[in-house]
């Protein structure tokens, strides 16, 4: 069972501001889902390798040749606060 403190800790890691009501709901919903998921921990998985890729693939990399990227102004056009040469953000502040 996840408690309020754990939910707030995970929300901080995820950079997600939650209302008090969301914290309550998240604690109960996540606990309910995790109770169901817990069952896989009872399986005997000694000596089983974790899946890193579902198919046998080797040599997936293309040759490392420089190519033009999208122009800076095209990328900056979608930004909430475009500056002349980059993305504007608020000050990191005291943290």
């Amino acid at each position, binding site marked *: 069972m996840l408690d309020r403190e754990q939910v707030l800790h995970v929300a901080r890691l995820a*950079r997600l501001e939650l209302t008090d009501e969301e914290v309550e709901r998240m604690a109960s919903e*996540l606990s309910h*889902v995790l109770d169901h998921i817990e069952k*896989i921990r009872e399986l005997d998985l000694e000596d089983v390798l974790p899946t890193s*890729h579902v198919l046998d693939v080797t040599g997936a990399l293309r040759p490392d040749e420089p190519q033009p990227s999208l122009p800076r102004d095209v990328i900056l056009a979608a*930004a*909430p606060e475009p500056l002349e040469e980059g993305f504007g953000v*608020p000050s990191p502040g005291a*943290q």
Partner: protein
Amino acid sequence: MTIGELIELSAATAAEKVRAREIDARELFEAYRERAAADELNAFTWVADAPPDDRSFEGTSLGGVPLGIKDLFCTEGVPSQAGSKILEGYRPPYTATVVEKLDHAGAPLLGKTNQDEFAMGSSNENSGFGPVLNPWDRTRVPGGSSGGSAAAVAAGLVPWAIGTDTGGSIRQPAALCGIVGLKPTYGACSRRGMIAFASSLDQAGPLTRDVTDCALLFRHMVGQDPWDSTSLAFPEKIALPRGEDLSGIRLGVPEELTGEGGGIDPGVRDSYEATLRLAERLGASIEPCRLPHAPHALSAYYLIAPAEASANLARFDGVRYGLRVDGEADLITMYSRTRAVGFGAEVKRRIMLGTYALSSGYYEAYYGTALKVRTKIADDFRAAFERFDFVVTPTSPWVAFELGARMDDPLSMYLNDFCTVPMPLAGIPAISIPSGLSDGLPVGFQLAGPAFSENRLLSAGYALEQAIVFDGSAARR
């Protein structure tokens, strides 16, 4: 040809007629464009306002037959929002590889289709732009997450569409809307330009009115892409299916997915069993098979997919694109508020679940265990395919349910994916075809095969389709 007659043509037939100059590609586009623009199902988030200028489609493989594209595919200069308020109005600077390939092959963009936010959902009720209605019964969901694509194809608002499948997001809405949906082998189609949910599972695939349309569209989607290192060269050309029987085909019925544990509705079971009997009459052999770890697939999936999503969705932070909510805030508060306002409830739930599963002290117990279960699930399939050509199940345990019926209980919604999550975990392809109606609502039949068996899957699906003779015209009225 009247508009009604145009709409009743399958996409492959329409393409053939454009190539033979029997119908005009602009007229075809305009007929569908008018229907899409008048859509009452909320299946679209954007519809083109005119046919593409000055393009001749007579010499193209896909004949100018217009395409519905799930919102999460980036399309240059056209809103691509992944069903999320955090990307509202976002117009990307480039186009996804599969969309580019289909456009070159002669399938121009007609509209972007509604979806569950970031492809997280099984009912399309998690869209930031409102739910999609099922054309068979407008009080019911179309399935998800590619619900807009499925509803639009079923309702004849677009001849064919593409979607993405992570845990069932092509096959389940295809089943609930009475159309065909294919989840390809992992890597068959490039993921470049697909707004990512869970990168080790996401695959693009077709949603179409019949199996022939599915094969034709899929033929032009596959291929290795230098911009997606997980994409692979498909080892053979995708053929248009012709087989009329199933002689010698061995079908495995997995007790773990089709037995009591799956909670399959009686009407769905009846249709599934009738399809098995039909397959037998077509020459297939049917025997029980074992997938011992399949019942644990849902648990592994609901750890792996949220874990990957929590990392993929970290990019939505109010800096480079999309929504920003700041005011007087410092940087971290700006991130957290932007995400609080921009993401919907299900996306937040999955980000929280995934972040928890990856967090210090829980990583091995949750994420690490899930990756081992994933290995066992792939092993189970490998063993099954030594004895069987395909493993067959109902696609969804239920027919389309009423809007709102499962929104208060996330776990009950997740159970919808019981029969569809094992395949993406193993990276293998699976197709859903309509097998009939239960209480007037479509039921889907799923066939899964080994990696790169798409040609055989399409061929078997086609043989069954010819014998089932599903009539989807009621949804197009």
